[in-house]
């Protein structure tokens, strides 16, 4: 299992959330990389080539949609999951999905559910 650890990049400006999410995903058996803003997040993704990127929809230097679009341009292989604290309108959801997002998460979320969902998405990509 240890050799097959999937890499998850978490981009969020909220340190506590980012760290706690990284910790629980560690517990769930993932390797996590953290980034506090969009710029470092994108750089980190390019550098580490993560299996999954979980990003907040609102970041100080960019919107989640823009990052999503940029990351998807880079690699069609990454699972992209967007997090939000509020309800999304149907248009927003459609927009996000069309830009390449795989899943939406509404905070707070059940870790086990998230874990299961990640596995499903990875399996779909044959990982």
């Amino acid at each position, binding site marked *: 299992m240890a050799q097959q650890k999937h890499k998850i990049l978490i981009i969020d400006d909220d340190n506590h959330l980012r760290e*706690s999410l990284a910790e629980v995903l560690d517990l769930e058996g993932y390797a996590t990389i953290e980034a506090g803003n969009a710029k470092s997040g994108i750089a980190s993704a390019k550098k580490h080539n993560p299996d999954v990127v979980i990003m907040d929809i609102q970041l100080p230097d960019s919107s989640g949609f823009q990052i999503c679009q940029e990351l998807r341009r880079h690699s069609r292989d990454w699972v992209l999951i967007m997090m939000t604290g509020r309800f999304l309108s149907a248009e927003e959801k459609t927009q996000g999905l069309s830009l390449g997002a795989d899943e939406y998460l509404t905070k*707070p979320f059940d870790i086990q559910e998230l874990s299961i969902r990640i596995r499903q998405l990875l399996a779909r990509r044959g990982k």
Partner: protein
Amino acid sequence: MTEAPKKRGRLFYKFLLIFLIVSLVPLGIVGYYLVNLSQITLNRAISRDQEALAVGFADTVSSYIINFRNVLFDAAHLEDFASMNVAKQQALVSHIMQLHPAFLEISVINADGQETVRLGRFVHDTKMRDLSNDALFTKVMRAGEFVGGLEKYMGSYPAITMGVQIVNPQTNQPVGAVLAKMSLTALSSLLKTGFPEATHTQAAVIDSSGFLIAHSNSKEIYKPDAKLPDDVLNVLLRNDAKTGSGEMILESTGERVLAAFAEVTELGWVVYIQRSVSVAYQASDDMLKRTWRMMLIVTVFVLFLGYAVSLVITQPIQALREAAIKLGEGDFDYLPDLSMPNDEIGELAHTFMQMSESLKVKTAEIMTAKDELERLNRSLENRVEARTRELKSAQDELIKKERLAAIGQMASVVGHEIRNPLAVINNSIYFIKTKNNAVPAPDPKVAKHISIIESEIRQANGIIDEILGFARTRELNPKIMHINSYLEDLTMSFPVPPHVELVKSLAPENPVVSIDPDEMAQAIRNLIKNGIEVMPEHGKVYVRSEVVDPGTVRVDVEDTGPGIPKETLEKIFAPFFTTKARGTGLGLAVVKKVADRHKGRVEVTSVVGQGTCFRIFLPIVQNPPPAPR
């Protein structure tokens, strides 16, 4: 139809007055003029007549006297008489006295002045007198003749003495004289015959000294001191004119008289005639009386005629007035009969009728227009009211929407900001729980507290969900679906506690509706949740669907809880209204909002002690697409 009071207008009296003036004034003027004229004419005529009479009578008097003088003269010139034969003279004188009763006495005197014959009616002393020194005899012998010497013979009869010379026809020498006294009472008789008492005219003859010789009233003449009134005498004796006439007022009696006088030539006497004005003007007075009588008759006649004419003239006017009053009262239908004669007033009446007809039509038009206007006004008012109500409700709606939008915005921010920390706590507690479960003997108390924290996180998240659910303004995402299967799915997944029984009763028609499944689920879940919450011991929740009419399906969620009091019932759909110790008060507000957004409505009925029933009415999709989900 009320009878107008039969009041005589002022016009009626004006007409009467005018008629009276028009008829009486000319009559009065003519009468006055005629009376005046007649008086003047009478005055002149009578004066002239009287003067003529006076002149005529003066002639008569003169002739009368001269006639007798001539008798004496003729006798004295007879040869028999001049012979101075006493016997012959006596016979002649006697003959004269027999012929002329006016002679009272006649004496024949010879040239020596001795009386030779003396005959007299009242003389019984036949003794011849010596008259040689007698003034009268001397005068006759010198002048040839004499007439004069007026006296009251025997103290009563006015008499005159006249004398003539006895002339010898051969020698033409005076041989003596004849002296005679003659009575003048015959003159009075003459006057009386000329001016009888009935004529109210008095006539008199006086001499230049005022001696009353004759008077038409014979009684006057026999008075011992008979004479005319002083004022009359004054006028007569001082006047130099031969004749004259005029009107004067007698001082003694105050009587107005018309008087005339004429001088008797040779004798120096005056004939005076007077007539009382009242008598003289009898005719004009009669005329005056007749005029007055005429005026009275005319007045009465004019009053009657004027009354009739005024009636004829004013009655149509009165009728017109009544008609005008009726017209003024707006009574067009019962105007009095105005069939009038074919004259100006008739034309006026005709014009009036035309005017009233026109007025009637116009008034009707105006009334119609007024009614129409009132109707329009009312309709306008109603429309304005309705519009105002609409505006008000729209404004209220807008304010509510704005308020809700502001609340929504705030709730969205707050919710989002709280969800982050909740997510962190959730992650952390998951971490702790995982770690705690990993140890060989996990502490049960830690596990319990972890569970408490997890539950509270869920609750907090639920509150945020509720707030955000109410506040969210995302567009409806409706889907065409059968109501029954939707409700089945919804209730199936709902965690119903064991003490509550959920009873479903679904419409056999299974109508198709267009709903946003997420939102509708939230609404119906809120209702079921509420129902469960009010029944902590045990109870039933009924979920029903029923077609109420071809276009509407009703979804009921009913509980058997304690019910809601009426005063509370009205407010339960208001946002933030709650009777629970905990809760946002948004659950039912969301239900209402969802129902409204689906073009439906929500109603509630409740019986305290029996339960509450919420009813959501939704429109049925009439021609659903071929393959609804």
